[in-house]
């Protein structure tokens, strides 16, 4: 789906990303973990096409891939003057039946006439995620989607995200600070170093997203932690 070759990025004099090589298959769920300010969001923005000032090559399997970007702050992707329903379609021609089905699935249909400021943070984030599914996006880019949610809300949003993800299996790249989430959701976890970010390790999860406790959960968890610690020392 995406081939990233020798990707580097600088902000004036500071190198942010350095020689990133990555190959992402269709339908894969990838998590990116790395220290604060290491360039995770920059990487995501480059992959989404929002930032095109970089060195290196990015090749997509086809042109005009339908992408969705779920911002860290859900308010950033909601038009406060539009209702939930209008925020879902954003002026695109989408069958109302489809919008209804998806909003019903995430229990937001009854709020369709409400405005974003009348929803909780979790509901807004859920709406942003639902929108990506309504658009049939082929590439999901999630920038710490749960970081501003409390535990209960997070569990809820995560549950709906996984349910819908399993149906459509869009290629997904998620930035996360939570190792547990990353291990539970992903096919592969990419661990970045501090600035300038390089890939420290890629951990492949066998039998990902299995019901109940993931076999070897602790092993993966340790491996991620270990890589992060080693990266710090280096």
């Amino acid at each position, binding site marked *: 789906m995406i081939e990233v070759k020798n990707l580097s990025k600088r902000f004036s004099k500071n190198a942010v990303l350095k020689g990133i090589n990555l190959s992402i298959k269709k339908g894969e769920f990838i998590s990116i973990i790395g220290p604060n300010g290491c360039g995770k969001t920059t990487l995501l923005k480059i992959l989404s096409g929002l930032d095109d000032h970089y060195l290196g090559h990015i090749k997509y399997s086809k042109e005009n891939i339908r*992408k969705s*970007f779920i*911002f860290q702050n859900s308010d*950033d992707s909601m*038009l406060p003057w*539009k209702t939930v329903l209008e925020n879902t379609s954003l*002026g695109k021609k989408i069958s109302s039946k489809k919008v209804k089905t998806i909003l019903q699935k995430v229990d937001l249909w009854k709020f369709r006439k409400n*405005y974003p400021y009348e929803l909780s943070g979790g509901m807004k984030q859920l709406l942003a995620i639902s*929108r990506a599914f309504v658009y049939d996006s082929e590439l999901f880019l999630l920038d710490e989607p749960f970081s501003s949610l409390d535990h209960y809300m997070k569990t809820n949003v995560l549950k709906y995200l996984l349910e819908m993800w399993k149906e459509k299996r869009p290629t997904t790249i998620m930035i996360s600070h939570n190792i547990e989430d990353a291990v539970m959701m992903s096919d592969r976890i990419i661990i970045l170093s501090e600035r300038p970010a390089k890939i420290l390790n890629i951990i492949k999860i066998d039998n990902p997203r299995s019901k109940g406790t993931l076999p070897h959960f602790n092993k993966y968890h340790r491996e991620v932690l270990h890589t992060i610690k080693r990266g710090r020392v280096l």
Partner: protein
Amino acid sequence: MNYKRVIRYVLIPGLFFLVGTLIYYCKVFNPLMFPNPLLVGTEFFRIIILQETLSDMGLTFYRVLIGIAISLVIGIPAGLAIGYFKKLYDSLEFIIDFLRSIPVTALFPLTMLFFGIGDTAKIALAAWLTTTIILVNTSYGVRHLNKSYFNMAKVYNIPKPYFFKNIIFYGSLPHIFSGIRIAISLCIILIIVTEMFIGSVNGLGNAIINAHLAYEIPKMYALIIITGIFGYALNKVASLIEKRVIHWTKQH
């Protein structure tokens, strides 16, 4: 009506009235300059009941309204364009800042040269003043829109007409409305002044200056109060419309 409203709309104005009466009876000022508030009150109600100023008020209202309407038609699209296209903003910033720094009263003679002393001159001055205000506020609104809306529009490939109408325009509305409120206040001031000094035979400003010239001082006071109520009402209507339209900002 709760007691807060009674205080606000009855008690405090009543207190002002009483203080006025006190000033009058203590002869602080010459009674010719500062008449008995009771007399002003009678004059006020006489004017209202006989509807003496209705046509003057109507004409002042008409001039203000046309001035504002012209400024909306020109100022909003121009402001949106200048706010959105950075190059346009960069090239026009100086000249706009310069033009709006010219006190509009300095343009009186020039306007009379072009438009004479009729309604056109007054409305042209009002439109000039309010257009600059609305234009600057609108472009400010666009430039200070949440940048993530632009990212969102780009990632989701939102159709351009929808983007301009529903993101750029709607997003700037709070700033456009604060521009409209400033514009209305200044427009009333300007229209009243032009009615006084640019050969007018009607309008509230003209009525005030006529009362002054005829030395009908209580009437002059009453007309000033009526003009105040007129301005207050216009601002109130504008802010009511604003609250209805921009429902989302009260939440933040």
